[in-house]
């Protein structure tokens, strides 16, 4: 019997699983993710920065919004709430029966492996450019509205 969790958490988990590994989330992963969000270790040192407030709107859109939030967060809120949630889910996915192989090398020759690496790098660069153009001004605006206070973006996002 799965444990109760909110619809929001389930929706968020499903979208993140799809984004990270491209499959549907199992009930086991959703329950584990919900429990992880409630765990003491998740909340240790977790703060709230302006970037996270902006990113939350983007990642809850799912799809492209989520993808851009992930890319933007890597450099502008690397230890923020979004990254923590995604790392939590990544750790669960690499340990779970249905998804751990998504972290293992697929059978491929050298050429395919190198091509995949180059392709992933190029797409990332493209996404990073779009994320900076789309989310950057929103982030900057939010910071200015906050009086430009120097929130610890690096640590808490």
């Amino acid at each position, binding site marked *: 019997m799965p444990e109760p969790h909110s619809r929001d958490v389930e929706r968020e988990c499903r979208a993140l699983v799809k984004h990270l590994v491209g499959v549907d989330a199992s009930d086991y992963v959703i329950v584990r993710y919900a429990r*992880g969000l409630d765990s003491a270790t998740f909340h240790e040192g977790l703060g709230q920065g302006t970037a996270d407030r902006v990113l939350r709107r983007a990642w809850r859109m799912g799809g492209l919004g989520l993808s851009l939030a992930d890319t933007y967060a890597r450099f502008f809120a690397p*230890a923020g709430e979004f*990254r923590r949630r995604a790392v*939590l889910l990544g*750790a669960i996915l690499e*340990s779970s029966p249905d998804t751990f192989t*998504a972290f293992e090398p*697929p059978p*491929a020759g050298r050429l395919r492996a190198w091509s995949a*690496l180059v392709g992933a790098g190029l797409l990332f660069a493209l996404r990073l450019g779009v994320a900076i153009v789309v989310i950057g001004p929103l982030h900057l605006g939010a910071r200015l509205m906050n009086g430009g206070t120097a929130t610890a973006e690096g640590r808490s996002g």
Partner: protein
Amino acid sequence: MKPVVVVGSGPSGVHFALTVLEKGRRVTLVDVGHARPSVIRQHDTFDGLKRNLDDPVEYLLGNDLEGITYPGAAGEYYGVPPGKAYIFRDPGGFTVRSQGFEPLFSWAAGGLAEAWTGGVYPFNEAELADFPFGWSDIEPSYAEVARRIGISGEIDDLGRFMPAHDGIMPPLELDLHSRKLIDRYTAARAGLNDAGCWLGRSRLATITRPHAGRGACEYLGRCLWGCPVDALYTPSKTLAECMAFDRFEYVPGVVVTHFTVDSSRRIRKLRGHALDGSPFEQDVDTLVLAAGALSSARIFLESVHRATGEAARLTGLMDNLQILVPFLNFDMIGLPYQPSSYQYHMLGLGLETDRPEEYVHGQITTLKTTMAHPILNNLPFDLRTARQVFRRIRSGLGLVNVNFHDRRRDDCAVSIDPDPAGGDATLVIEYRDDPGEEASARAAVARVRKALRSLRCFAPSPMIHVRPRGASVHYAGVLPMTDRGGDFTTTPECRSRDFENLVMADGATFPFLPAKNITFTLMANAVRAASAL
């Protein structure tokens, strides 16, 4: 004859105890002794566990997901696997204050070596130069320990730094990545050797054929979570061997705080408290402190304070500096990944230096079943791209753990802050880095990176991690053995010069700390000291 009382069941304590038992004496071993949780699904592979366990996340990451390394977390790259958390569980009442040092303590049956990675490297003549004995004096004890624990390895290019001793069984099967590294080394050997760099097989306390009731390595890939088939030796195996003697008494669940002495400074009683707080007392004829250099020092210091009122300071604390150098082997891109293989280091890298005792030792681990999420979090991509990149490079990831020697210095010390109310004292640790060490460590890491380039591996400098001092857990040097005499020293047989019936059997007595893992020498020295009892 009264029993010899040993404190601590780590590598020194159990090998001291077993040697004394084999001589026909009685032994009482007092210990906190947290026990290892029972092994689950003993013969499942690492991937098999993920498929077959009802809750693999709990096993791999812990019930409260304490095995996750979150972004921005201070400290080490990896935490302690949940299955090994029992090793560090605090029994309560043990307080420490430290400066420049992040100590780790164990309260497990078997001690800190229950979490070791199995490297067994005898000290050579140059590394023993400050010890009051030479290679020929300790070689029989190394051979005895090798016979007891089982050691696999090979006498190869690293043999120039590691003396040979009896009892080495054939080495483990190399995984594909380690084989590629050895092949590249063979091709580039001449140039690397000219640069003073040598590569070879690790000598490991992991057995490749059944030995002393333990099974050979089954290559299940579960090493990081604790070997399920006991192929990797840990001191709790020798503790179990001791228990087969009817002259052996094991007293777990006790935190020893101090001993009391009579007017001639002869130890009469050992004191402490049980885990429920009730007082503990044990009569003593001969006392052996083997609780690890820091814990033994604390017992010693508190005893001195209670006996004399003196708040002594023991200088000369040593610990190996460790620098982690992650690398990517381009030869492995697109090649298969082998989770069902041995997971700790199978190769070693040795760097010659101007002074032979300052040899630099690297342990090369090819990363396979290591948790992915800390690596994903550190790659310079969003997490989705990081996963895509990670799975393509996973089979080529590796790590060199570079170890450096340490020397006794007056500004590295342990002392106690006594409790005025008469309770347990606080252990105070001070450590200051050797001012010359940073430059020599930087130069050594540059040599390691150059050697890796010769093996077609790339070691990105932003990923290099200097571990906090204390992380190596190779603590030593605060009550050194010497034949020159002096307070707070021991004889060459590890007998205290301050208390006539006290033997210090652990790393506290080491007068020098080479770059090698000291556990093998801890065990051999305990055998040597016990033989002289």
